[in-house]
């Protein structure tokens, strides 16, 4: 009499994709060695940016807070690699990586923003949590967990109504998947088959809340079942795996076949933000994941000698140092202009 929903989410409980469980992939032919190296360097720039950010903070040279994505670089760069210029990005509070991986991003403008300077992407008004580059269709990081998800519905509708073949990459965390905003957005995107890819970066925690306690399902991607869209879980520390999963999702979106939920399983090495004592996890757990450093892993795939690897990293550090120099030489916003830019 009653039709029972077979709870496959629990029934087909799959081994959680972890960094160690998944073999690294071959380099995509469309990247070639050059493209692959470019991406390695991008990851290194992100890492260098964030390490510098930490340093500047500890020196008291920036204020506020920041959310570092150290350890998650493969997810950002792998994902962005599947998009193309003209596509849109909606980003999160932990968004330095995606921003730097995005088309046309200039690290010195990001650093200047981070340091609150007039030359920054947002003229120093936004800071770490609000970096945007609207000219490049980077619609901004977001200080609100899942704040970009309802917005993605509008971006998707806009693409459809304007009749372009753009795609909108919408990033959020495991924590973001428990907000009402997630639900409303995924349902709307699904019923209207909007060209949006939902990338959930499951880094195991929402601040101190372990994913395992915040979900009663093994994989965030299982949520896709509730919206009738594909859900994919991928090793988020494998740049090629992320890229491949995202390619499929982007292709579907671009073909008008609607949204996909891609879960990228990864880990943040640092605390949630600058004030985190990390009482909710063990040092060993952190170390295990650090052994799966996405940058070193890709270096191994590329079969780079230690020296060459180091040279790339030195190149990245150099970019960051130049960005700091640029930012330090930049002017502060003027107090008289504080009321500028509220209304258009």
């Amino acid at each position, binding site marked *: 009499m009653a039709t029972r929903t077979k709870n496959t989410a629990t029934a087909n409980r799959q081994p959680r994709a972890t960094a160690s469980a998944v073999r690294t992939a071959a380099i995509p032919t469309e990247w070639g060695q050059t493209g692959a190296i470019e991406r390695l360097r991008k990851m290194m720039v992100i890492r260098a940016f964030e390490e510098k950010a930490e340093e500047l903070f500890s020196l008291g040279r920036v204020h506020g807070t920041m959310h570092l994505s150290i350890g998650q670089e493969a997810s950002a760069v792998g994902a962005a690699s599947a998009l193309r210029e003209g596509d849109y990005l909606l980003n999160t509070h932990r968004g330095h990586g995606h921003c730097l991986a995005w088309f046309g991003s200039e690290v010195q403008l990001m650093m200047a923003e981070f340091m609150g300077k007039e030359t920054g992407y947002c003229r120093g008004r936004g800071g770490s949590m609000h970096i945007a580059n609207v000219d490049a269709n980077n619609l901004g990081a977001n200080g609100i967990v899942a704040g970009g998800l309802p917005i993605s519905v*509008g971006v998707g509708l806009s693409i459809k109504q304007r009749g372009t073949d753009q795609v909108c990459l919408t990033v959020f965390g495991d924590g973001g998947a428990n907000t009402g905003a997630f639900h409303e957005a995924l349902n709307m995107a699904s019923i209207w088959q909007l060209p949006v890819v939902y990338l959930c970066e499951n880094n195991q925690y929402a601040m101190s809340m372990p994913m395992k306690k915040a979900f009663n399902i093994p994989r965030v991607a299982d949520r896709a079942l509730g919206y009738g869209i594909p859900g994919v879980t991928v090793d988020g520390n494998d740049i090629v795996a992320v890229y491949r999963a995202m390619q499929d999702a982007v292709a579907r979106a671009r073909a008008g076949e609607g949204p996909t939920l891609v879960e990228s399983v990864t880990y943040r090495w640092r605390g949630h933000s600058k004030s985190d004592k990390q009482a909710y996890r063990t040092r060993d757990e952190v170390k295990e994941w650090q052994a799966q450093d996405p940058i070193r892993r890709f270096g191994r795939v590329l079969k780079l000698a230690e020296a060459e690897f180091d040279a790339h990293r030195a190149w990245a550090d150099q970019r960051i140092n130049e960005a700091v120099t640029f930012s330090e030489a930049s002017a502060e916003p003027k107090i008289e202009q504080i009321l500028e830019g509220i209304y258009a």
Partner: protein
Amino acid sequence: MRELTYVEAIREGLNQAMAADPRVFLIGEDVGVYGGAFGASAGLHQQYGAGRVVDTPISEAGIAGACVGAALTGMRPVGEIQFMDFITISMEQLVLQAAKIRYMFGGKATVPMVLRTPGGSGTGAAAQHSESLENWFVHIPGLKVVMPSTPYDAKGLLLAAIDDDNPVIFVEHKLLYKTKGPVPEEPYRLPLGQTDVKRVGKHLTVVATSIMVPRALQAAEQLAAEGIELEVVDPRTLSPLDEGPIVQSVIKTGRLMVVHEAHKNGGFGGEIVGRVAESEAFDYLEAPVKRLCGLDVPIPYNRTLEAAAVPQVADIVREARALVK
């Protein structure tokens, strides 16, 4: 001039905006075949199709977000929140996203969206369908807040709101929908941020919003017979507020009463009093000011209590008389 009801004027405004600009589209619950809970979009679905008159699931955060995202990427969405009460579910998107995006991004983005929503009591729908929350939005820089009181203002302000490059909260009133007034056929714009003196008088300045404007005008009619001349001032755009005409009026009359339906406590009336008390009009005030507002009570269901919860014409007459004496 031809007369239309307030809701017809809004519908005509929506229609003309959609006809003129392919970037304009409607989105909300039951705005399509149903025509909107109060009929504001009746017929537009048939005319423009489901692609431009988008029926949504019950997802008020999603509706607001859909407007933000579309506006950010080149469209000019007009969203509808079926009752103003439900806008409580849209607050994050409106306040933390729509209102702030431009400023947070250093002035490098625009969010040209309009969110229409009917406020007010008087339909017997009780406490969860009768909110008047406009002052919440007045409190948020980056938003504009418009509250038309006549069919003429409704159409002209709506077209101006759709033209505006900022997020506009457009607050209609359920009891006004069926009121009639002259409305030009061609599209016309009434600039946002222009206070309108709806009746010239000399004894008391009555600043009224939305449905309280016709009620104040009725009260003024009655009092005129007693020789009391109210000046009825309608801000129309509550934020950014054009305070000049209010201040000038108080300088002339020496007395101020603010009338709105929203609860008195923490309401827009305080803002008006604050503006006047900080202005040069302060020295001209001959009597304490009066805020005649909704009682600080959730709107009751019972018809008599419901009416007693917000200012009626007789209340305005009584209080105005008392102030002038």
